[in-house]
C-alpha cells in the first residue's frame, strides 16, 4: 500500500510522517506541493507544520497549491485522507472538513501529551481502535481550538463524526473535540500527532493504531 505525504513549503512534520508510514509497513510517497499528482497513493496524510509560515491564517494559503486540487478530487471520491495538526487546519480551510481551528484560549503554544478517547471506529483511520479506547498522544499547536457553529456541532455529534475527544481540554475546543471526520467519513482531521508515537524507540506506539487502521481498511 502506498501512502502519500504532502509537502508544502513550511511543512515540518512531513519527514516524521514519511518515517511513520515506513514503520507501519506501508510505502511512503512524497507529494510535492507544486506537482498535481498523488503518484498512485492509496491514502494521503497531510502533515503538521507551518505551511506558508501560517501567514494570513494557518492553512489558508496551502489550500490553493496544485497538489490540493488532486487531493480534493481524491477525497471526494472516497480516498482516505488524514490531516494532522496543520494538516487538519488545511483540510478545514479547503472545506473537506467542517469548522475551523482558532487560537488556543490560553493564547500560548501548547506542547504536551494529552489523553483522548476514540469516539468512533467507523473511519479508515480509527478502524482498528476500540470504541471509547483511551490513547495518550502528543499535541503541539498554537491554533488547536476547534470551532464550529452550533448546528454543525450538533450534526457532528448526531452523526458520530467526532473522531477523538480530549479527556482534559488543552486548548478550549468546542465539545472537547480533538478530531472530526467528513460526511463521507473518509477524511479525518486530528490535532494530536499520531506519527510522534509510532516508534517503540521513543517509548510509545499508540499512534500506530491510528495510522495502521488505514491498512486494515485496505484489506477489507
Amino acid at each position, binding site marked *: 500500500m502506498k501512502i502519500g505525504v504532502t509537502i508544502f513549503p513550511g511543512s*515540518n*512534520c512531513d519527514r516524521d510522517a514519511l518515517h511513520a508510514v515506513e514503520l507501519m509497513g506501508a510505502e511512503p510517497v512524497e507529494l510535492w506541493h507544486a506537482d498535481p499528482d498523488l503518484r498512485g497513493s492509496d491514502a494521503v496524510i497531510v502533515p503538521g507544520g507551518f505551511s506558508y509560515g501560517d*501567514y494570513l491564517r494557518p492553512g489558508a494559503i496551502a489550500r490553493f497549491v496544485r497538489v490540493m486540487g488532486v487531493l480534493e478530487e481524491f477525497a471526494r471520491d472516497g480516498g482516505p485522507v488524514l490531516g494532522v495538526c496543520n494538516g487538519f487546519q488545511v483540510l478545514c480551510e479547503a472545506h473537506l472538513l467542517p469548522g475551523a481551528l482558532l487560537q488556543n484560549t490560553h493564547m500560548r503554544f501548547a506542547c504536551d501529551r494529552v489523553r483522548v478517547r476514540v469516539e468512533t471506529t467507523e473511519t479508515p483511520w480509527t478502524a482498528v481502535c476500540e470504541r471509547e479506547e483511551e490513547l495518550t498522544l502528543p499535541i503541539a499547536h498554537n491554533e488547536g481550538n476547534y470551532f464550529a457553529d452550533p448546528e454543525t456541532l450538533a450534526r457532528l455529534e448526531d452523526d458520530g463524526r467526532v473522531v477523538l475527544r480530549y479527556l482534559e481540554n488543552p486548548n478550549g475546543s468546542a465539545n472537547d473535540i480533538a478530531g472530526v471526520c467528513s460526511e463521507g467519513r473518509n477524511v479525518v482531521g486530528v490535532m494530536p500527532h499520531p506519527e510522534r508515537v509510532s516508534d517503540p524507540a521513543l517509548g510509545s506506539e499508540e499512534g500506530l493504531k491510528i495510522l495502521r487502521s488505514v491498512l486494515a481498511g485496505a484489506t477489507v
Partner: protein
Amino acid sequence: MNIQETYSALGLSDAEYDRILELLGRAPNFLELSLFSVMWSEHCGYKNSRPLLSRFPNEGPRVLQGPGENAGVVEVGDGWALAFKVESHNHPSAVEPYEGAATGVGGIIRDILAMGARPVALLDSLRFGPLDEERNRYLFREVVRGIGGYGNAVGVPTVGGEVEFSEAYSGNPLVNAMCVGLIRTEDLVRSRATGEGNLVVLLGSKTGRDGIHGATFASDELTEESESKRSNVQVGDPFAEKMLIECCLKLLKEDLLVSLQDLGAAGITSSASEMAASGGVGIDIEVDRIPRRESGMEPFEAMISESQERMLAVVEPEDEEKVLALAERYGIGGTVVGRVAGHGDLRVISDGEIAGSVPAEYLADAPVYEREVIRPEYLDEVKRLDLEALPEPDDYNEVLLKMLAHPNLRSRRSIFGQYDHEVGTNTVVRPGADAAVMRIKGTKRGFAMTTDGRGRHCYLDPRGGGAATVAEAYRNLSCAGAEPVAITNCLNFGNPEKLEGYYQLAECIEGMSEACEAFGTPVVSGNVSLYNETARGSIYPTPVVGMVGVFEDVSRHATPAFKREGDAVIIVGEPRNLSLAGSEYLEVVHGKVTGRPPTPDIVTERAYAGLIRSFVERGLIDTAHDVSGGGEVLALAEMAISGGVGFTYDEDELEFLIRHARRPDLSFFGEEGAAFLIAFPEERWDAVQDALGATDSRGVSWVAYDRVGCAGGDRFKIGDLVDLTLSDLREAYEQDLFGIPGEVVGGAEAVG
C-alpha cells in the same frame, strides 16, 4: 562630521584607526571604515578575549572540527557526527525581546547548517532579573515567545535549556541559544572559499536595513539610549529559514557547493571576508546585485546589513544554473553576487567601479588587547559566611515548599510547554530531566545535551565557578547515561576594560579549562558576549556551557523520575562535604549571596560520574539525578514529583546525617560536588552493591555511598522534619512561571 567623530561613532578607537591607516597605507573611505568597524568589534573580532580563549583545550579523540569554523564537530560512531555551538543574543533581546530571541535561534541554526548538518535540536540558556519587576516579566515572556515562535515554525525541536532569575540580570537579560546538528562525517562542509573564478551566490531572503551595525551595538554597554537602537535589531522569518535549510541541504546532497557560510553578525562583510581569509583568496562582491527589500540603500548598508535568513555559497560556474533552479524550487532567492578572485581583498564593486577594497586578512585580524589580571577587592568581602549567625528554620515543610516554588527551582513546564520539543521524532527524553536525550534514526546510537551556567558561583569565586559550571554539565550528561564528549560555551561577562570584568573573564576561563582538561571534554566552539552592563552594574560573570555526550545504545538511559513503588534510593558520592556557601538555600530562604562555594574536585567528580554512567550502560539503573542547586532534599523532591511516587527517608541514615552536619538545613540543602541519587528495584540491591564495591588500581575500594530511603506511597517524608503529600509538593513546584500575581495569565498580556 570629522573623521574622528565618524570612526568613534562606528565604535573604533583612535589607536584602532591609526592601525587601519598603517595597514592600508592610506586613509580608508567610509565604506572601508564600516567594514573594519564591524569586523573589529568584540562580537566579530574577539579583541579582548582572544588571548584568553587560547587557553581552552581544543583537542580530543572524537573532535573532527575545533574552534575556527561555524561550529565544532565531534564523532558519534557509525559514520555519524554532531555539529554544535551556542551563541548569545543578549543585547538585541534586551531592547526587542521577541525578535532578539527569535533571531538568536535563527542565527545559531544557520551556523550548524553552514557545516552541512541538519539542525536537529535547540537548547536555550536564559537569565533575567527577578519576576517581581514588570520589565523583567515582559522580557522573560517575550523571549520565551520569541524562541517558541521561531523554533516551532522552523521545525527544530527545543529539547532543553535552563533559566535563572537574579537581580544581577535586571535590564541585561542573557539569551544564549544552542543548536545541535547531525551529519555524516564524509558530508562535512567548510567555509573556505577556493577556486579563482568560482561564483559567490547569495541564498535566501532579500537584504534590508535591519541590523545595521548590530555587531557594534552588541559590543557596547547597554544604556538608556540602547532603546533608541531598536532598529539595530533584526527581524526573523522562520518560514524563510525553513526553506533555506531544506534548500541548502538539498544543494549539498547534490554536491553543488564548494563551500557554505552563514550570514550573521556583520552580514556579507563578515561571511565573505572570513571565507576569503581562510581560503587565502579574495572575493569581489558586486554590491548592486544584492537583492534589496528597500530602495536607496548605500553600498555600505548592503555590505553590513544583518538581514536574517541568508547564506553565502561558493559555486563552480558550471553549476550556476542548477543551483539557481533549486533555489527557485524552494521559493528562496538565489543570486550570483560576486566571484572568488586571485587578489586577497574583500573588494566591493558598485556601478562598475571599486567602491572599496581591503585585504581580507586585515579584516579577520582584529587588534588584540591583553590586560593585566588583577584580583578585585569584592572577592574578599563576599567570601565570608558565618553559619552561626544564620538562624535555623523551625518549619522545614515551609522551607521546602518555599524553595520548590522559587522561580529558580520551580518546574520549567510552563516554559518548555510553549516549545515543540518532539518535532523530528527523535526526542527520547523530553525536557525536565537532567539532560535531553535523542536517538539517531536507523541506529541504536543516541546523544545527550545540556546547557548549564552558574553565575552566582562564578561571581563568588570565578575560577571555582568556571570549573563547577563544566562539572555540572558533566554530571547532568552522566546521570542520563551519556559519555560526555565536548563542550561549546558562551562567555557572558561585563565590561572587559574594567578590572573586575577582565579578572572574572580570565579566571572563569582558567577554571573551565582546567575542568575540561581533567574531564577530557575539549572546547570545540563558542562565542563571547562582553559589555553586559547597565547603569545598575555588571551581570554575574556567567559562562554557559553546552555539553554534548553520546550513547552506544540509547535505549539504556536514565532520568530523575522515580519509576516504581518500593525502589531503594541511595546516594553515591564523596561523603558529605556539604556547604551552604553561595547555595540556593542561602539566597532563597535567607536572601544572602555570600560565601565561597566548595571548589569542585574534578578527579573525584569524574570517577563518580563514570561509575553512575556505567550503571546506566549496564542496565542496572534507570533512575539517576545529581545533587545540585538546593541540595539533597530538593533533588529527592524533584525525583518524587516527576515520577509521581512518594519517598520516605531512612530514619537511621537521617539521624547520622544530621549529627554529622550539626544542623538539618545544612544536611538537607547543603550543596556539594560529585553526589548522585540513584534508585532501583530492591531485588537488584546485591548487583548494585557489587558494582559499588569498585576498586582502584591498587585494589582499594573508593566508592562512598549510603542508602537514604525508599520510593513509594504518596507522601514525602523526612523524619519528623518534613511530611508533605505529593500534591503539596506539586502545587508549589508546578506553578506557572508566567502567572505572577497581578498579571493576566494567558490573557491579552501574554500575547504582547
